[in-house]
């Protein structure tokens, strides 16, 4: 008899909680493909390569991320910028940029190493693949488009929620250099002008010509 009463006592707790979760809306389970748990602000998801507001790539191909990477999953090669049609400010841009997502340990050292905040991490976490090749993300996949979202390797995959990008911190950091939205639209964050913004000093020949002109004028 005693056993039965103990059993009922125990099941009452179970039943009570069951009724409370169902009726009282206290279910903790997230129905994952249908709804997602909000990721913490600093979640380390897949990487993106950002752009400046004017559309230029932030990546200058300096390979500091590759040097910092403890898993050696980043491969970068720089290349000369075409002065007439530059991809990034300055002389050099990232010509090849590849991350092997399967090697990557999402430590974020690349983000810290990056001198231009070109590489940042998003909240995207859905990138399981069926083969190893697909896990090597090239610049095509990593580079943010001008709207501020990144192309996904599997855009047709119904499991992927591209809208989630809008809430990804990568987007915020991409458009505001120091991470504050108020900076949006401000060209650079330091006082000195960036490369290519002003004309070079006159050469000796030009200087000579100028002084000659001045004397002949006067």
């Amino acid at each position, binding site marked *: 008899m005693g056993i039965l009463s103990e059993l009922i006592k125990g099941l009452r707790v179970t039943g009570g909680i069951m009724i409370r979760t169902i009726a009282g809306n206290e279910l903790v389970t997230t129905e994952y493909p249908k709804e997602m748990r909000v990721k913490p602000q600093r979640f380390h998801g897949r990487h993106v390569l950002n752009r400046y507001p004017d559309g230029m790539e932030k990546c200058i191909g*300096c390979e500091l991320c590759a040097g910092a990477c403890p898993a050696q999953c980043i491969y970068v090669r*720089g290349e000369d910028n075409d002065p007439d049609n530059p991809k990034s400010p300055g*002389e050099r841009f990232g010509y090849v940029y590849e991350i092997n997502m399967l090697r990557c340990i999402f430590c974020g050292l690349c983000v810290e190493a990056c001198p*231009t905040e070109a590489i940042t991490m998003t909240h995207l976490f859905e990138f399981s693949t069926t083969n190893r090749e697909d896990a090597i993300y090239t610049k095509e996949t990593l580079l943010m488009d001008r709207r501020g979202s990144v192309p996904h390797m599997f855009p047709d995959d119904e499991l992927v929620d591209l809208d989630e990008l809008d809430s990804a911190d990568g987007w915020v950091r991409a458009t505001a250099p120091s991470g504050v939205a108020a900076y949006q639209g401000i060209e650079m964050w330091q006082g000195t002008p960036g490369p290519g913004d002003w004309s070079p000093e006159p050469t*000796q020949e030009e200087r000579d010509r100028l002084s000659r002109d001045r004397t002949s004028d006067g």
Partner: protein
Amino acid sequence: MPGPCQIAVSCRHVACTASGGLGVAMGEAGPEHVTITIDGVSHEVPAGALVIKAAQDRGTYIPRFCWHERMNPVGMCRMCLVEVQGPRGPMLVTACTNNVADGMVVDTRGPTVKKAQEAVLEFLLANHPLDCPVCDKGGECPLQDQAFSHGPGESRFVEIKRNFAKPIPISDLVLLDRERCILCARCTRFSDEISGDPLIEFKSRANVTEVNTFPDLPFSSYFSGNTIQICPVGALTSAQYRFRARPWDLQMVESSGMHDTAHPRLSVQVSQNEVLRLVGVDNDATNHGWLSDKDRFGFQYLTSEERLTMPLVRQDGQLVETTWAEALDRVAERIGLIRDEDGGEVFAVIGGGHGTNEDAYAISKFARVVLETNNVDARLDDALSSHFLAATADRGLIADIDGADTILLWGPDLKEEHPTLYLRVRRAAQELGVRLVVIHPRATGLDDRASMKLTYRPGGGFALLDEVADGKHPELRQALSADRVVAIVGQASFADGPQLAESVAAYVRNKAGSARILPLARRGNIFGALDMGLAPDLLPGRVAPDHAGRAALAESWGEPPAARGKDTRAMLEGIDSGEIRFLLLVGADPVRDVPDPRRALLAMDSAEYVVSIDLFLNDSNREADVVLPAAGFAEKDGTVTNLEGRVQKVNVIAPIPGQGRPDWAILDDLAERAGRPIGLANAESIAKEISEVAPAYTGITWDHLEWEARDGAVVPLSGSQPLSHIPVALKGDNAPTAPLLLHVGRTLYDDGVMLRHSPSLRPLARGAVVHLNPEDAKKAGAQDGHPVRVVTSHGEGEFSAILDEGTPEGVVYVPFNQPGGAPLGTDAVVRVTAVGR
């Protein structure tokens, strides 16, 4: 405190003695020592040394930008300020321009010094852009490192930095970024003092000073790459290496440059299995850290698309790719057939001068054991006799140049053919006061440092030597009768023939108190190849193939063939006449390489069976029956021997493209298939076998070279013969007397197969040009830059004329093997006519 001028003058001498060469080489007692105190610790240092050098040798690093161990100090950058207790109290002086004195008290890290260093760095960084992430120097930059270790951390300068157009190409190889320049004068001093072509200089004054080239005059020095290496910032960068990699993704290994026989030490740097750059390594024995641009930039052929990757065999007139087994079986079968029919006399092996000693040994053993022939030659008909090159008892060391009284240079233009040696000779003549005598048919790169220069007409070398012997040139005789004479001899002109150099050497040997000979030959490892027996009259270890020599080898090789073999010229003639039925080319391109290519062309056309082991299809092996892909520089381990007999280790770091294999592996496999195994397991075991078989190489193992003799081990001259057997002066009666005589000489950049496949150096070849004295040009009606027709009895072709005061009247100078240039042969008599008249 003495003024800067005084310092500069007084230190010139110090730099010489401090860097060692003279004192050591002359066998004097070591310098006296004084006691100084560095940071509270007292040290014994050589008297007269610079403070910065003395401190460095005692383990205290004083930061510096402008001071370089191999150059004279200037005190430009002020980074090396230290506090010295002087008679009037402590004062800041530059450690690079002050000599140590007995009892000197030096403080390198006190608060005053720290403040000075921080101030200097803050000033240097006032205009230096902070673009380290895109700068090629970033990660290996002295300014970056020292700003980090000695800098103030932040700058008070908020003003806009200087802004120049950048980068500007100052030559085909070097890019200049003036924004980054900190005006240390390393590049300007190098090109002025070391390489002797001051093409880069400061211009303007004060705060607008910038480094630049002269208008319309590119930085076309043969040594421009060194300025990139010594630049302490990213102001001078390499066009070839620009943005290819960063220091942290480079793997590196030490090796030797194989473009000339001096074997400068260098570091091969590789990323993603691709050789990306070569950097000079300071080595007292050979290069002092300098490299010529050919040594530095001439490696791109390794990754050329046209590299052979698969064995090729001829099928229905076409070379088709096949497997190693198929290709080697074919060759082995043919070797067996021919050997059974005609014996070993009909085989010929040409080449082997570009590989390692291990490769050369394999070729030598393969030829003697499998082919049963002594018809092997690594010289391609353009070098001196094998005994003279390899087995001269009076052979000197490169370092002997520094301690000599007189250097006699009778041979090719060192600047063009042996750039590493050129820098050594230049330094000796300029800094160490060695008397330099240059004898060459026309102007050479060393003329401005020569105390005596003689020219002679091509082919008239013996006549000149006769004159000297008869006492017509007393100054020269006097110079040669000095105590220590170094004679650097080689073939100055194709018209001279090889015997001239030997006679010169023998003459000097008889004349001087103690003469040392440095024989010159082309092809990177020719001396190693000859030491391994790649000559018709030598066996490994400079042993003559006489009875005793062969008996010594018999134990490990079986009895080598007794008959004396043919040299390259005889082999090529033999192929033409049908005496030779089987030709093996190992990294050799006779059609492009021998002085008279007609003979090689004929031979290649009429050869019965040609097998080539090479990196590329070239003019000689395009018609071969079997072509086997080999391993190139940095793709194989081994040892090499330079012109002074110094054996150094070269190391592997890059993979061989495709299915290529090292020469020794190919030959070992082939020998196995031909039924006469030569038992070579790997390169290190070959080195061990060499040390057992070749008398001169006893004890030279890889372990020894890697751990004990990092600078290389000089093989003893045992087995060598004195020069006395060479007749001194043949009468130069048969010197050609035509009004115009042809002087064909090699240049640094030519149309050789390696440079042809190196995109950065290829455009630097001079092209089909002929140098004419303006007087001769006037007679021929030729104008500068216009085409002229040059005709000899061996060939003719159209060349672009260059009017050149450096070429004496009556001499016509044509650089050998240039893209578009026709071969002219060895005949000195020449006619020049203007085209279109």
